[in-house]
């Protein structure tokens, strides 16, 4: 049986429809259950004393005064925890040459970034623990600090980890064709520098973990705001020396993740270690300052890049030299080399060209560690590529849409392999661009821009085509030795009342996983979505899976659910055929009823079948299989990743007196393959766009030369708020992946991938008549005025 997706009136046609999220109702009533909402008997709170220096030897730690604070239970240092917790090394074998030193849950004798945990204070309340933490006296001996990325490898720069030899964590050079020759013979070559600022995720729910250790059962239970419960199960078991089967990770409601909550954080492992030592529940909730200094950062890149084109706008070559500073450690277990690696993989992505060279240099520095954050590497690669393409278009006097049309892979060219050696199964750059032109009425917008210019208003239109990596296979992490599951599973069970419970290894972070799964299970079994109950985020209950990352939930978790639901349907029909003395192939399940497949005539409701199976099984034939529960797992095999594509456009106005950018409107046409729930996809795109707009206009972590983070509060690190954000028009082209029956690819990161480039190009479109150009994000009012030459000192 296959699903006739082309027929919206097919029975049980829930895939492709907007269906409300089953778990949204509780959240609007304040009945969510986030980690901080959970209170366990004898629960203690841990607060961390963190290094206030970016690099220092720990001379001594005096906890005497702190111990005297009422409510304090225990105080731990790094060496205390090292006795029960082994360190980790965040490298992956397939990232050749990646190196990183062992990292402990708390600093042992040296702190290497401002915010690194040094002492843990456990008390009966968070307030008491904070009072005591303020009294812990750590004597530091300052060491030389490395902050600048571009000079980190200079011979006179101190080496942060002398045992590693230098500050280079990872370097990769990819070369395809003959870049230098192509550049030499090109009609135009444009070279420019780009800079993307250090970001962090600013999840509204801070990182949160509550760990209980029950020595009587030898069981650890971690209530964790995480994207990858099974991965965390492995990590806690491995480093705390507990059998994996004796660690249960429960992930209830999570207040925003965006990649921030898929990593292993030293303070969270420390919390588990402390719970094990103290044999009681210990809760750690990061406060907002801790969030800024210890949630992973990302996107701190400096790039020099060139593009060569011929007179007709054909791209001849792209050359990229990317540098990024990742802090003092590669982050476990995904590593901090992936983002730079993605820049190499993704630059030039939409375009059919021959000569490509890209190098990434990933260096250590004394700042907060960086790692994967929504749209890993994409916003950087898209900004480089689309910025270069626009500059090339301007240099030869070509419309930016036209130059893209002349270079994008033809929609019928697939499968193709890109110059970066990425394999594309099927993309729709031209159809997407056509749709975008129609949605935004490009010509009318250009006319409006010209009219505005006559009135002294500087408006700009920016276009950004992009590709997005989704549905990762083990080629992303597993082949490098990480126990990060690329496959995922779903167990589907029918209960006596005819309702279905589906347990999935992918998790809900708010993106709508439960709704998406309920639709797929409903359609594949033949019931209404409200009869499906989804269970996620519990390693003791759900099939083993990878969780939420790299836009994999729908494409991989969804396909597993489809297969499991299909299998359950067959199990149900086998029983029904026996009960009804009918041919199994002549029966179907529709809206919770066994029906004749041809006529649609109802034969028996599922709750009747359930009654017989569970309470009057004696009436069924002996030997009839009656397992109304089925599990299926799914893994992608044909391609390492399912690439998606899309194109965004920004229309904005630049106040050339103040430098303030006003976003007028934004468009995105996106092709994520089969759309399971249009509303959820649209809102993923919108939310993603706004995170990208934050990077384009507002977000930037500042450090001083001593490695002190200067803007670690929500008042100082600016994320988008409602007033400045535009309305966004979203359109779709659907090119389902042929690898799965569902045909779904990911949609969670497309918005973030393309938005910054679209804004950059729009600003530069507005500024071009004034001879100015910006390439350093965020595009603050000041940077715009400096580009204009208005301020120079």
């Amino acid at each position: 049986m296959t699903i006739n997706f082309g027929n919206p009136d097919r029975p049980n046609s829930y895939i492709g429809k907007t269906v409300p999220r089953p778990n949204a109702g509780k959240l609007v009533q304040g009945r969510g259950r986030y980690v901080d909402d959970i209170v366990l008997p004898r629960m203690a709170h841990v607060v961390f004393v963190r290094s206030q220096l970016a690099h220092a030897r720990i001379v001594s730690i005096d906890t005497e005064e702190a111990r005297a604070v009422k409510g304090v239970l225990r105080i731990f240092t790094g060496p205390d925890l090292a006795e029960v917790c082994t360190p980790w090394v965040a490298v992956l074998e397939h990232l050749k040459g990646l190196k990183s030193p062992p990292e402990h849950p708390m600093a042992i004798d040296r702190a290497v970034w401002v915010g690194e945990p040094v002492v843990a204070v456990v008390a009966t309340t968070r307030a008491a623990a904070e009072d005591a933490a303020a009294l812990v006296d750590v004597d530091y001996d300052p060491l030389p600090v490395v902050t600048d990325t571009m000079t980190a490898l200079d011979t006179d720069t101190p080496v942060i980890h002398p045992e590693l030899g230098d500050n280079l964590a990872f370097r990769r050079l990819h070369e395809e064709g003959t870049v230098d020759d192509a550049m030499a013979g090109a009609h135009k070559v444009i070279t420019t520098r780009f800079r993307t600022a250090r970001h962090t995720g600013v999840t509204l729910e801070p990182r949160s973990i509550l760990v209980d250790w029950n020595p009587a059962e030898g069981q650890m239970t971690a209530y964790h705001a995480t994207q990858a419960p099974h991965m965390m199960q492995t990590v806690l078991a491995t480093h705390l020396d507990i059998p994996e089967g004796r660690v249960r990770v429960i992930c209830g409601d999570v207040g925003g993740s965006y990649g921030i909550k898929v990593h292993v954080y030293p303070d969270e492992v420390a919390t588990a270690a402390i719970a094990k030592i103290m044999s009681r529940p210990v809760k750690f909730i990061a406060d907002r300052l801790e969030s800024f200094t210890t949630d992973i950062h990302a996107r701190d890149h400096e790039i020099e890049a060139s593009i060569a084109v011929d007179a007709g706008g054909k791209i001849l070559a792209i050359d990229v030299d990317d540098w990024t500073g990742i802090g003092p450690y590669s982050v476990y277990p995904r590593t901090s080399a992936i983002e730079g690696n993605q820049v190499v993989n993704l630059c030039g992505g939409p375009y059919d060209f021959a000569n490509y060279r890209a190098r990434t240099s990933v260096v250590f520095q004394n700042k907060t560690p960086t790692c994967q954050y929504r749209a890993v590497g994409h916003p950087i690669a898209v900004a480089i590529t689309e910025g270069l393409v626009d500059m090339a278009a301007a240099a030869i006097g070509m419309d930016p849409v036209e130059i893209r049309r002349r270079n994008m892979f033809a929609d019928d060219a697939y499968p193709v392999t890109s110059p970066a050696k990425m394999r594309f199964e099927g993309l729709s750059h031209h159809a997407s661009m056509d749709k975008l032109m129609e949605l935004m009425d490009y010509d009318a917008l250009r006319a409006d821009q010209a009219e505005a210019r006559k009135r002294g208003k500087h408006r700009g239109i920016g276009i950004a085509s992009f590709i997005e990596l989704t549905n990762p296979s083990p080629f992303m992490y597993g082949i490098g030795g990480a126990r990060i599951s690329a496959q995922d599973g779903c167990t589907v069970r029918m209960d006596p009342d005819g309702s279905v419970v589906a347990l999935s290894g992918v998790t809900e972070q708010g993106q709508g996983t439960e709704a998406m799964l309920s639709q797929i299970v409903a359609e594949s079994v033949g019931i209404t979505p409200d009869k499906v109950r989804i269970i996620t985020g519990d390693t003791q209950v759900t099939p083993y899976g990878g969780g939420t990352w790299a836009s994999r939930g729908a494409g991989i978790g969804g396909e597993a659910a489809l297969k499991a639901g299909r299998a359950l349907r067959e199990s149900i029909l086998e029983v029904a055929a026996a009960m009804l003395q009918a041919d199994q192939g002549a029966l179907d399940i529709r809206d919770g009823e066994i029906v004749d497949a041809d006529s649609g005539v109802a034969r028996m409701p599922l709750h009747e079948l359930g009654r017989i199976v569970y309470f009057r099984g004696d009436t069924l034939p002996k030997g009839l299989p009656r397992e109304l529960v089925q599990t299926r797992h799914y893994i992608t095999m044909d391609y390492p990743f399912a690439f998606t594509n899309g194109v965004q456009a920004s229309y904005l106005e630049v106040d050339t007196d103040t430098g303030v950018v006003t976003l007028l409107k934004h468009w995105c046409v996106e092709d994520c393959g089969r759309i399971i729930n249009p509303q959820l996809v649209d809102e993923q795109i919108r939310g993603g766009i706004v995170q990208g707009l934050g990077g384009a206009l507002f977000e930037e972590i500042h450090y001083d030369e001593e490695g002190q983070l200067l803007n670690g509060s929500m008042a100082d690190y600016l994320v988008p708020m409602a007033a400045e954000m535009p309305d966004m028009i979203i359109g779709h082209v659907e090119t389902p992946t042929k690898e799965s029956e569902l045909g779904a690819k990911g949609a969670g990161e497309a918005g973030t991938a393309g938005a910054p480039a679209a804004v950059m190009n729009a600003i530069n479109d507005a500024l071009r008549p004034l001879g100015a150009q910006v390439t350093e994000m965020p595009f603050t009012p000041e940077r715009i005025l400096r580009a204009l030459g208005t301020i120079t000192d």
Partner: protein
Amino acid sequence: MTDMFRDKIDISLSVNGEPVEARVPAGQHLIDFLRLDQSLTGAHASCEHGVCGACTIRVDGQAVRGCLMLAAQADGADVWTIEGLTDRAEITDLQDAFVARNALQCGFCTPGMLVAAEDLLSRNSQPSREEIREHLSGNYCRCTGYEAIVDAVELVARSRAKGGTA
């Protein structure tokens, strides 16, 4: 410490229409009191310095930052949280509109966002999209990109103007 300053303060207030008497630490903010002492976990502590709006609740008829008001200051106050507003079905239309429009994803900002939205609609029954965006600017949402929230609030304003359920 003098006799007149206390580090624990007795307060008597109304929370979601129910009388509450408690003794609170001098420095405890109202959200911690509601979450830790009253088990009202609907409002969330996120930034704890008044920027993000996740702790927005209603005190004496007005939307306030729960993290910027001490519990001690709530003596005699009439406090409503998302739980109470839900129980008395005061914002059901807003809640339904948020669900229907998917104006929430992770839901962490949502209780505060709803209180802020109701605060706007109670002052301005027909706000423009710009006014909605402006009013909700004190409430961070990192998931939705805000447009769905603006849509939902706009829809409820129109619906109420037509005599729809409030």
